[in-house]
């Protein structure tokens, strides 16, 4: 009886082009909106996971391997698998629903999340989120 589809929850996208990718809920719309009359949420996820960084790598190589490619999407709750993990990264000011209307706003939002997720990856926290789900 506890609501668990809340912002900062880590989820796995189940359907669509990004199936199998991990994402974090930025904003949830439980009651739906007029355009989408079902429960859905705005998620920011990883399109391309960062590669494995080893100690032997030079600084240039580490920088190249730690790159993260992101996506921002509105997803139906039915197409998500919630997990017990959370990722408290502040993405609310970078991403909003109207960022999905035009292409350049979407690109700007993805760039902002890319910066935040990359710095989170470099600190070494939330390691589960940045590893690819094997299936």
């Amino acid at each position: 009886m506890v609501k668990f589809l809340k912002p900062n929850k880590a989820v796995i996208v189940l359907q669509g082009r990004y199936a199998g990718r991990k994402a974090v809920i930025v904003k949830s719309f439980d009651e739906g909106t007029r355009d989408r009359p079902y429960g859905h949420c705005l998620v920011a996820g990883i399109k391309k996971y960062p590669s494995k960084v080893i100690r032997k790598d030079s600084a240039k190589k580490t920088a190249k391997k730690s790159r993260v490619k992101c996506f921002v999407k509105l997803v139906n709750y039915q197409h998500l698998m919630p997990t017990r993990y959370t990722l408290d990264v502040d993405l609310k000011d970078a991403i909003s629903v109207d960022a999905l209307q035009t292409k350049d706003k979407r690109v700007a939002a993805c760039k902002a999340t890319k910066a935040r997720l990359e710095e989170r990856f470099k600190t070494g926290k939330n390691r589960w989120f940045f590893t690819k789900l094997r299936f």
Partner: protein
Amino acid sequence: MVAAKKTKKTHESINNRLALVMKSGKYTLGYKTVLKSLRSSKGKLIIIANNCPPLRKSEIEYYAMLCKVGVHHYNGNNVDLGTACGKYFRVCCLSIIEPGDSDIIKSMPGDH
């Protein structure tokens, strides 16, 4: 022998409580609506039949763990669970939303 007798008595009492919920309370039957009730945190108790596919059973249990909702593994298959609900179809999992007059939620969620 004593254990078998005890499970038979509690099994009947689950059936009685379930019948009371069907008459007086709110419930949903079926996998899709069970997940919906868990997502919207409306479900209060989930009952799963014993021949539920293990992947589906784990998925429902995971959702229930996130939701902190009790899961009861019914001692019978989906045919029996459908009969216990008074329906003429098979029911693999069901979610109780309002227990009505029944005390199923107070007496059941301890066991798994």
